[in-house]
């Protein structure tokens, strides 16, 4: 088990060089090697979505990847998105609509929502509901999460931006 690989990853804009075991999960790499514990682990088999991160800009389950697969790629976690202000509107809407209780699923939910709105700016309520079904929440019963995401989707500045570019639809490189 002492076989290690050197990897280069950009995490939240920082260039990281690390030597890791090939079997180290990306979620554990982020949480334990880098101390970015905002990414949570709820099932470790890709269902719950608490570990969702952006991998080259796309929402991805970090528990279903190895750290070595991130070599040469860019990752953003909840910490990076919060610090850069990218999810500011979503955070505010989550607080306003009581879209979290225990908060354990929340980082994953925010990343899923950010990804959903980024790639499909013109979203119907139905599409938001389907899109947000990518992650499990056990506390809220979901409606407050949907309300929060819908409010951000309908912000005037988002609407204006959406009018300017066509929705991106297509295969995602995962």
């Amino acid at each position: 088990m002492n076989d290690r690989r050197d990897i280069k990853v950009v995490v939240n804009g920082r260039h990281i060089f690390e030597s890791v075991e090939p079997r180290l999960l990306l979620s554990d790499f982020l949480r334990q090697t880098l101390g970015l514990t905002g990414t949570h682990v709820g099932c470790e088999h890709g269902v719950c979505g608490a570990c969702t991160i952006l991998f080259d800009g796309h929402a991805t389950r970090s528990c279903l990847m190895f750290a070595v697969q991130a070599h040469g790629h860019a990752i953003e976690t909840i910490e990076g998105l919060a610090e850069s202000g990218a999810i500011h509107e979503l955070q505010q809407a989550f607080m306003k609509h009581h879209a979290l209780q225990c908060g354990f699923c929340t980082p994953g939910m925010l990343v899923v929502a950010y990804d959903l709105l980024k790639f499909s700016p013109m979203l119907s309520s139905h599409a938001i509901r389907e899109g947000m079904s990518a992650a499990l929440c056990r506390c809220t019963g979901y409606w407050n999460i949907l309300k929060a995401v819908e409010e951000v989707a309908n912000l005037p500045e988002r609407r204006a931006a959406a009018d300017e570019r066509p929705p991106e639809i297509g295969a995602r490189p995962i």
Partner: protein
Amino acid sequence: MTTAQFVGQSLRRKEDARLTSGQGRYIADIRLPNMAHVAFARSPFAHARIRKIDVAKAQALPGVVAVYFAQDLAGDLEPLRGILTTPPLAWRSHVQHAINIPEQPLLARDTVRYVGEAYALVIAENRYVAEDAVELIEPDFEPLAVLAEPSQALAPDAVLIHPDLKTNVVGAFRLSKGVDHADLPSSLRRIRRRFENHRFLASPIECRGVVAEYDGRNNSISIWSATQVVHWVRAEVAKQLKLPEAQVRCIAPDVGGGFGVKGRVYSEEIILPFLARKLRRPMSWIEDRQEHLLNSTHARDDVHEAEIVFDDDGKIVSLKDDLVFDAGAYAPSGIACLANVSTHICGPYRVPNFAFSATAVATNKAPNAPYRGTGRPEGSFVIERLLDLMAHELAVDPVDIRLRNMIGPQEMPFRPGLPYRDGVPIVYDSGDYPRSLRLAINALGGLSEFRSRQQQAWRAGRYLGLGIVSYVEGTGVGPFEGATIRIDSSGGIVVATGACSSGQGHETVFAQVAADEWKVEPSDVTVLISDTAVIANGFGTLASRSAVVSSSAIRKASAVLRQKVLEVGAHLLECDVGDVELRDGGVAVKGIPHVVSLKEIALAAHPGSKRRPPGVSGGLEVTEYFEPPTVTWAYGTHAAVVEVVADTGEIRIEKYVVAHDAGVLLNPMIASGQIMGGVCQGIGGCLLEKVVYDAEGQNLTGSFMDYLIPVAAQMPPIEIIHTETPSPLNELGVKGLGEGGVVGPPGVIANGVCDALRHLGLEVNRSFIDQAKIIAAFAQADAKERAR
């Protein structure tokens, strides 16, 4: 004396800034220097004798610190004997009972009794190596006969899961009032049915976990645990490690959901501190999802043989229920679930005669213990299905049958004549039950409107049904919760209480309560919870209790401290204490604008200060305990329009309404969130979630691919209507509401489906709705039609 300014406001939560930015700190986020990682070897057999465990290979793996099995703990640690397993004396003296709770070994020694039970553990430098080593442990099991169902365990020749108990019955009791069923006139109508509540579980998105650290300087232990009951963990660890409680501290960090499954002491919470002390290293164990689904406590899982006796007017004369509860291999919370069924099954209805028996039976399944609702949904399912069957027999509307039997507001307070779980005779303290039923039906568009829509839909080949459940909910149970209130030298108000939040927003709501008490802003209040170091005695957050008992303790302690603050303030203002009041973050003379701030008062009252009035002791700190006389009764009605799709058996909930009364609401936004989340869990529990064991006692639902938690797209529209009838049992008028949301869904959905399919004569008497049965009922009706 206080006027509410912040209580009742939907203030945003203090917790949310950290939790929406990845700054929460959960159990798996805690890393201590030199921390070792623990993984457990868990039984693949439901029932087997352990002949031998060979750990040589595991021990030899590089990175392994040690391997332990039961013999390594023997002599130092005792089995778990739950402290809640013995009901209070007042209950025992009222109720005929035989309680026989087995001890639960921390690690199985000679016998494993369910799939997932731990029989060995590995300590290693990291989790990966620990799990590798678990795979290298070579146990030699001799499989024993498996008792997969209570019926097998009750057979006269059944093997004994706990031979020392000489029976597989781990608890039984009966209680009754009024006339025996057999002595009731034969002219009365009777409906007898079997009802089943299936096994499912809380499964919060964060699993459990424990971190422990030993400090040799003062022989003390710190435990971090994803728990709802830090003081209980402290007590058990202190007892097991033979330490004074002062040398044991338990902290619950941010906890990622609890719902009861984290509301008791588990073996890992004893083992980890023991290992940390023994090996002089911090220890971490983080449960994975498979462990959680196999090994953390499951819930519900009972069978009722119930009979209701009623007259031609649809009035209930008597209810009889004989319940068998599948306790699993151990019964860590004793008969708590069964006692709750007995106290909630009569609901908000007049039931003049009542006979109840409960039998908890050990089987080779994971232990069964309280999960949100705890007996309330199970009992409600029975009476609410029976009410709909009565309505059907008498050809009256289910709404009408409920109104004929419901306790009216003029009958409050109402005494059903039965003891609560705390042994105190039940008194429904306040409320207007029929109003909640009417509000719920109106929110669905009104009864006659629905019935005509239902007729139209039938003619068009669509099957709509109305499902209703009305319920009462004992909340805010004792024996106590405490609060320490302190005003520090900065003038800030510190509130410490024994509650442990796992998402309820305690830091926010308790700040609201305290802000009203002290005429300050909630931002001036610091709330300390979930830590045995902040208050000497605590009980914890479970059973819909913290809003009632912690808030009342905060109010009680504030009242005592307020007197001292007014005295010091009056002294500084050079006037009589009767002339001053709390105002604008300080003390002022009534009618005069000048305010002496709490900071000035705190400095004047500080030990060593010469500015205190004569005879007043130094410091501003008071601890008081609120000991409620008994529970306060929240109530409500859930109602939904349900559609059954003929071809697929799919159940669609068009709209789900909750009319709920939990007395005065501290923060309506948070209250609604609790109800919404509960309804979601309840609906998931009926339509998606089921723990499945096969005949060999194998758990077939060990991942989220098999055990299905609802997602956003599966939630129906839910409307919540709050009414607020204050409780007379506490000054704030608060009742608890954490569990109400899960009580309704089983009965609402089953009643709705039956109402939609009346023409097929289908009865749904199991809480997990089997779509295959619905399809079969349609097919059978089609076949009959064709034969004609």
